């Protein structure tokens, strides 16, 4: 029993790691292509057909780059920081049901590593721990740009932590469970049961917070190349930088999954169509990240903070209050 569970878990974890590492790669390819088409150019075209092998080329480049640890950094923390970003991103994936359960060779597979009953809390918590990557990396880098980037990262992450926490509170009041499976099943009745329609404010607040927590335009402040070079990643190179990168893209995918499951009905009733619908929703959210990047400028750090504390947070609190009243009466 134990051994079987262990084997199954290890297989699942390996599959998730492989799939999402690859997806992070493909994510960059899609990002380049989508941005390119929106910007009337072609994007990568030279490596492989339609530039598809660009990902492999990038990977080879990152893996074989010279290992540089700049003078004056704190080497141990400098090395640990990227691991934290990548590890926490994938650890967060443990409680996300990526697909409905299916049977293969007579063996029922649950595409979720651990169906813990506090799923959403665990995911949010893990993503929050991911803050330590930029924080420690930036502080250890002995670079002033990294330092400013770290200061921004802390302020942005923790501010939006509050917003996303308050935003999901209202849907959770309706569902009465923290497990993502339960949340999904709550909306199994079809499109009219989606939480996005009963909790539009919470949905949009969480969506905005997702942009801040993944550091995407218009909240692309932490590694804003026009001001801070690459922010906390300025002194990093090779695979250490690659780990930050994988972590960021994996986070984008996972947060897209969370949004799709929490607000847009997830995989619905668990049919094959539902599974594809889930992937479609995730793809939409991911695409939306890219779309925004093509369309909008970035905000300024103080404007971002203004938005959180003076607009989004009061809105989230009011949303919780109204939900409470509606549920009671």
């Amino acid at each position, binding site marked *: 029993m*134990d051994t079987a*569970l*262990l084997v199954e*878990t*290890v297989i*699942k*974890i*390996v599959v998730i*790691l492989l799939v999402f590492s690859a997806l992070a790669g493909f994510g960059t390819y899609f990002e380049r292509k989508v941005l390119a088409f929106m910007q009337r150019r072609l994007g990568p075209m030279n490596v492989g057909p339609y530039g598809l092998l660009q990902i492999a080329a990038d990977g080879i480049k*990152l*893996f*074989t780059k*010279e*290992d*540089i640890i*700049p003078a*004056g*950094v704190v080497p141990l923390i400098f090395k640990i920081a*990227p*691991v934290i970003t*990548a590890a*926490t991103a*994938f650890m967060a994936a443990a409680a996300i049901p990526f697909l409905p359960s299916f049977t293969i060779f007579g063996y029922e597979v649950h595409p979720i*590593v*651990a169906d*813990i*009953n506090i799923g959403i809390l665990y995911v949010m918590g893990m993503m929050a721990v991911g803050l330590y990557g930029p924080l420690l990396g930036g502080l250890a*880098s*002995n*670079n*002033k*740009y990294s330092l*400013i980037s770290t*200061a921004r990262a*802390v*302020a942005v992450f*923790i*501010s939006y*932590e*509050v917003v996303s*926490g*308050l935003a999901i*509170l209202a849907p*959770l*009041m309706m569902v*009465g*469970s*923290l497990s993502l499976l339960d949340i999904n099943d709550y909306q199994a009745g079809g499109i009219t049961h989606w939480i996005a329609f009963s909790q539009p404010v919470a949905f949009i607040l969480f969506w905005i917070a997702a942009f801040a927590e993944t550091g995407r335009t218009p909240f692309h402040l932490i590694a804003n190349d026009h001001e801070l070079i690459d922010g906390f990643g*300025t*002194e990093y190179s*090779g*695979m250490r930088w*690659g780990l930050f990168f994988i972590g960021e893209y994996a986070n984008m995918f996972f947060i897209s999954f969370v949004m799709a499951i929490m607000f847009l009905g997830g995989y619905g009733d668990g049919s094959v169509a539902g599974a594809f619908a889930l992937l479609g929703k995730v793809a939409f959210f991911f695409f939306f990240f890219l779309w925004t990047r093509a369309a909008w400028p970035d905000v300024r750090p103080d404007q971002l*903070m203004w938005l959180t*504390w003076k607009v989004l*947070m009061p809105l989230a*609190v009011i949303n919780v*209050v109204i939900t409470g009243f509606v*549920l*009671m009466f």
Partner: protein
Amino acid sequence: MNEQFYLPLVVITITTIAIPFLFHLSKYLGEKSMNTNNQNEVYESGIQNTHKDSFERFNVKYYLVAIIFVLFDVEILFMFPWALNLRELGLFGLIEMFVFMGLLGAGLIYIYKKGALKWT
């Protein structure tokens, strides 16, 4: 404790930390680092003659935000169990929580008035 829940978490923690650490070995794949002084110079727009390094103190204007965050995030943690058990707690629970949130809101207004939300 339910091992079905927590065994996988332990496994995924170990794997996801171990594999990125293995990535550090990639330094043996490429060229060996020349480790010269110029190469290891910390980047500051190409200026070597800089006044101070980054380990000096830096006035993080929004450190107050961190403190406010601790305040509010802990409150939100209190709200999660309440949100799950809203129906059992009934009207009394609801009113109790709203009083609590009212206190929080008053706190936010106080912070606002005090000017702690000005971080420019």
